[in-house]
């Protein structure tokens, strides 16, 4: 049946790792918006949540880097990060191997996706789940777009991946929710960590909310690096979510730059066009 939920949120490790260093009011508003996103997802009664991530060398490395990957396991472990650093307890998150397999078969009709029967979550998935499904009671299907190790997946292919996920989800009897996670401009884990190009972020989100395919795909990687840093490459996940919405418009529910978290913390939801 048609996708039941489509949205996007930030996954910056600072959100949990350096929580108390942010302005209290801003942090509380962010947490409230993240918990609301979790409630909104649950209200659509999903059977599984596809998380389109931009993982950071937890599973995929330059020895064998897939442009796209989808997990195909009954459970996943994570986060890989030091617990004292990320402040999220390492746990086992439920998956759904049979459902993953069907989804992958569908996606493969148009996009050459790698599948993975092992997948360790890093902060890219663990931080969102910490707020969205804190009880770890909803089966997760991790998906990944290579936003880290150049050559990167082209933006137009990220769009194609979103379309493929949508078509595959719609063909299943299950109710599938989708959340993309990534940062917009950021310079994570570098001496420039904390730098945020708020203007560029808001412009990107305006294009995203309008679901303007041409405008979203018009960025070059050189533009992105100059304006949005190497973290900006993660806009690929947002682009996949826009494609999955099949032309529907989005709403920016929260967007606030928080330097100590290194990103414009963002929560956004797409409509779902038939």
């Amino acid at each position, binding site marked *: 049946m048609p996708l039941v939920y489509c949205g996007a949120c930030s996954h910056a490790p600072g959100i949990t790792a350096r929580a108390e260093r942010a302005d209290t009011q801003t942090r509380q508003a962010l947490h409230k918006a993240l918990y609301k996103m979790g409630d909104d997802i649950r209200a659509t009664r999903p059977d599984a949540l596809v998380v389109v991530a931009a993982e950071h060398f937890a599973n995929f490395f330059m020895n064998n880097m897939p442009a796209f990957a989808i997990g195909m396991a009954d459970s996943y472990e994570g986060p890989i990060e030091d617990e004292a650093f990320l402040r999220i307890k390492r746990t086992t998150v439920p998956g759904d191997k049979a459902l993953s397999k069907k989804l992958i078969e569908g996606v493969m009709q148009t996009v050459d996706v790698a599948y993975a029967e092992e997948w360790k979550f890093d902060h890219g998935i663990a931080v969102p789940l910490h707020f969205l499904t804190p009880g770890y009671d909803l089966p997760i299907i991790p998906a990944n777009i290579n936003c880290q190790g150049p050559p990167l997946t082209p933006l137009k292919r990220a769009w194609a991946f979103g379309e493929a996920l949508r078509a595959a989800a719609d063909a299943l009897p299950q109710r599938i929710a989708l959340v993309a996670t990534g940062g917009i401009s950021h310079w994570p884990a570098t*001496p420039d960590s904390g730098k945020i190009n708020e203007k560029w972020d808001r412009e990107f989100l305006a294009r995203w909310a309008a679901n303007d395919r041409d405008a979203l795909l018009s960025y070059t990687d050189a533009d992105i690096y100059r304006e949005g840093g190497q973290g900006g490459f993660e806009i690929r996940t947002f682009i996949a979510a826009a494609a999955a919405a099949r032309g529907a418009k989005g709403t920016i529910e929260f967007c606030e730059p928080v330097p100590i978290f290194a990103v414009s913390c963002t929560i956004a939801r797409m409509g779902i066009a038939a």
Partner: protein
Amino acid sequence: MSLYQVQKLIYQLNRDPRTQQRYESERAAVLAEYELTEEERAALETPDIGLLYVLGVNGQLLMHFAALHKIEWTDYLEHMRVGLKTHGAVREGVYASTGYEGVDAHDARLKQEREKR
């Protein structure tokens, strides 16, 4: 240069608790499994976070390597800044430094802007 080998070691270390145990108990043996230059080996062993950054190690790998060594976040960032001063610009990989005002100044500026709204 063998940035690939340096990053591969850190990748394995970050994701695999058994490699972490071995790195604790038999560090030299683990390091010997990778084709490293003497500079790279020493940078990993010390660990010299600043030099590893200048060698081009991706921050998404380096951040966790630093956390593994119990290096606090602010110190981690400072190590990289010192590395740039000591060893010069990043030699390989995706980075070029862009000169940032720093989190505290940035935060204060954003707060002022919010209050003006």
